[in-house]
């Protein structure tokens, strides 16, 4: 009987580069920037690291995982590159966590990086998705695939288009407000509801402010087993309470019944993660979330998929401020993908970085004052109909 990963992995140190249009730097430098913070936080020598997992979804640093070892001058340790679309960061963390949980390593690390702003594109760069996919799929972009959530959500729950548009705008206004307090965030300027609602359309009904930043950045997590962390003198320990991934088997796009109003993989991963963490009432037990708000509508339906809002109620809960910084369950307290930014390979680790800081009371001006309990991160790779969803839950002790 599998025993899961709860309480088997401690986060020893974390680091995160400044996210944004980092015209000043390249992939390897971003790797170093995140790693140096993490290793200093961990308080160990880099030579003690026994394995590394490298999350990189694009092609900005060269092939394979070797660029990670090269940038950090880590000689002769195993490094593994992982890629799972926008969920790449959490995938890297999973590799490192499993390595220490299994006892194969005492110290392992995960590092995700993306250097998107040498592509020349305003949004995510285009590219082939494989010959058969290219031959038969619609002419889609990421915002277009997620925008359809709005059409499905509205058809199912029947609110006025303007009401949903305002709820989506509120999601982004909230994240912009949160990011003003985050010195590492990409977008730190507040916006108004009017700006969000009236912005040019990117993919109907998503406007410019419904879409997350396209950013450069890196994030790093160094993990070990809790007993080793304690032996190193760490008194306040953050451990992984659950780490669950769910990939679609193709039912959404090919089967019958899915109405594009929710993301089934999120529901599956959340149910397993709650079981693993021992959470019976997520709306009560989870105090903070970092979710995959690639687009405002994604965050909105994710509140329902995570069980933090009732089905069909998230748009009202959002407008009521339930997920604002001073709300019942703050979401994207660091600005989220929307404003902290979305360097793809780094994002999943960046989410855990924020939850880790918040649990340890080290989040500075944006520190949540209440007792957080469990902090959840939700990292989605792919489109709503074709994705892998990763959920990591962390807590103290």
């Amino acid at each position, binding site marked *: 009987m599998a025993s899961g990963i709860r309480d088997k992995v401690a986060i020893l140190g974390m680091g995160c580069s400044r996210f944004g249009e980092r015209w000043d730097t390249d992939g390897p430098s971003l790797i170093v920037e995140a790693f140096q913070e993490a290793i200093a936080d961990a308080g160990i020598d880099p030579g003690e690291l026994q394995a590394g997992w490298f999350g990189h979804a694009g092609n900005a640093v060269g092939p394979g995982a070797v660029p990670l070892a090269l940038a950090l001058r880590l000689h002769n340790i195993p490094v593994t590159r992982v890629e799972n679309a926008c969920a790449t960061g959490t995938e890297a963390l999973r590799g490192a966590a499993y390595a220490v949980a299994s006892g194969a390593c005492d110290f392992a690390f995960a590092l995700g990086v993306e250097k998107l702003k040498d592509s020349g594109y305003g949004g995510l760069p285009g590219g082939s998705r494989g010959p058969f996919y*290219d031959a038969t799929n619609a002419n889609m972009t990421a915002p277009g695939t997620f925008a359809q959530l709005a059409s499905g959500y509205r*058809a199912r729950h029947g609110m006025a288009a303007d009401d949903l548009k305002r709820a989506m705008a509120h999601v982004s206004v909230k994240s912009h407000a949160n990011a003003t307090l985050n010195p590492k965030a990409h977008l730190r300027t507040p916006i108004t509801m009017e700006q969000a609602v009236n912005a040019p359309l*990117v*993919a109907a009904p998503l406007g410019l402010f419904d879409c997350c930043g396209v950013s450069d950045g890196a994030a790093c997590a160094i993990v070990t087993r809790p007993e080793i962390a304690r032996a190193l003198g760490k008194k306040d320990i953050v451990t992984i309470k659950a780490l669950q991934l769910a990939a679609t088997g193709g039912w959404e*796009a090919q*089967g019958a019944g899915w109405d594009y109003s929710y993301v089934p993989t999120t529901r599956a991963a959340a149910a397993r993660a709650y079981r693993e963490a021992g959470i019976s009432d997520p709306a009560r037990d989870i105090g903070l979330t970092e979710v995959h708000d690639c687009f405002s509508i994604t965050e909105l339906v994710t509140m329902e998929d995570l069980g933090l809002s009732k089905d069909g109620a998230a748009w009202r809960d959002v407008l009521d401020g339930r997920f604002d910084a001073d709300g019942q369950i703050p979401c994207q307290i660091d600005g989220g993908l929307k404003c902290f930014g979305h360097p793809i390979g780094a994002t999943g680790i960046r989410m855990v970085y924020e939850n880790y800081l918040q649990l340890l009371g080290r989040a500075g001006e944006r520190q949540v004052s209440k007792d957080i309990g469990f902090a959840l991160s939700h990292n989605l790779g792919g489109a709503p109909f074709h994705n892998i969803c990763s959920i990591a839950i962390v807590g103290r002790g």
Partner: protein
Amino acid sequence: MMAGILSYGSYLPMRRLPRQVIADATSWFNGALSGLGRGERSVANWDEDTLTMAVEACRNCLPEAGRDAIGQLVLASTTLPFADRQNAGIAKEALLLSDRTHTLDITGSQRVGTSGLIAALEAAVSGKTTLLAAADRRHASAASAAQMINGDAGAALLVGPGEPLAELVCARSMSVDFVDRFRASDARHDYEWEGRWIREEGYMSLVTQLVTETLGEAGLRAEEVDHLLFETPMPGVEARLAKALGIRAGAVARPLFLEVGYTGCAHPLLQLAATLERATAGEVICLVGFGQGCDVLLLRVTAANDGRKPAARFQDQLARRKVETNYTRFLYFSGELEFEEGMRAELDIKTPPSMLYRDRKTILGLVGGKCRETGVVQYPRSDVSVAGNARTRGTQEDYPLADRIARVRSFTADYLAYSPDPPSCYGIVEFEGGGRMIADFTDLPEPSLEVGQAVRMVFRLKRTDQRGFRHYFWKAVPVTDQNTRRQD
């Protein structure tokens, strides 16, 4: 053996360009164009070409059953998209005809449609069934008369043994190297000689001679002709010709010039399809094709034609229209004007021929799979069915989806994706009877669709790569009263 025309169909693209739009934009340069500024012409969408229009005409022509009887598929045009890759062979895949079909492209003259019809009628006598399609999307320079006169369309006829809707009375051809127009193999636009010479020495002389000869051969008098189907790029010639031949003025088929334009190789067959929709038993049709000589066919309508309707009537297709008033968009769609398309248009996606061959039914034929064990329909088919059947391998049977109505399940209008006609509109569509796919939408009157709205599938160009390879696939268009197709 009874033989003749067994079925007919036509296809008109949705867009119509009022000729005045061209005149307004260009008559400062060529004042003579103002004189042609009457009526409107049909305009193919950016994702339509000769091949896609031919396929749609064939789909409108094909009877619900009987594809198995088709022995050959002939595609007639001088604007075929591929010079070396058989265009009729692509149409055959889209129409799901047998791999043993004899497919053939015929080209080289504006009368290739009528020449193809004569050959098909001859083959019918020997027991062979031919699906003949003629289509044209002809390019013309900006500020040319041809740009105003041309129209884009396709037409198709099923010809073979069986009870015909119209039977051949007599056909004759004349071949003379009369160069009213030409286009070199590597050229984009036609070059035309003086109209008055074409009219007098071509239409009035050559056509008059051959029609007279053919009527004589058939033992018919000119006044017995009920429908004279002869329209040229020169409006008004047909009436003069009828008078010269002694054919009743009322027998001259209604010109398509004001509503469609002159559709090149497709035109005689388009006129024939439009005429058969309202012709009655016993009527005599005189069908003329002109181009380096001419073809004349005398056909007699049979009782089988009465009450017969194609899947999408010509009149309904005339009614399905979206008026194009933007001259630069028309030029861009027809490749006569270069736009700065942005970085996303630089993406060059190849279609590997090895993959296209392996998956030709799935891609070109829109064939999905139906699980033998569960009955669940899916697109595309896969080794293991999407719905639970203990993951048995290889339970999928071919399940064609192209002729099935579908419902919109999700929608977006994407302004970020590169499209020649932004926004790029797409969403999940679910077929009646099962199966769903993420489809591009095209021919939308406005860039919006409601969840639940009915759509049907059409064969369209998806993209052209930097090597000129044209990749075709299926897209969804809204179902309207004018284009409702039969359901299997």
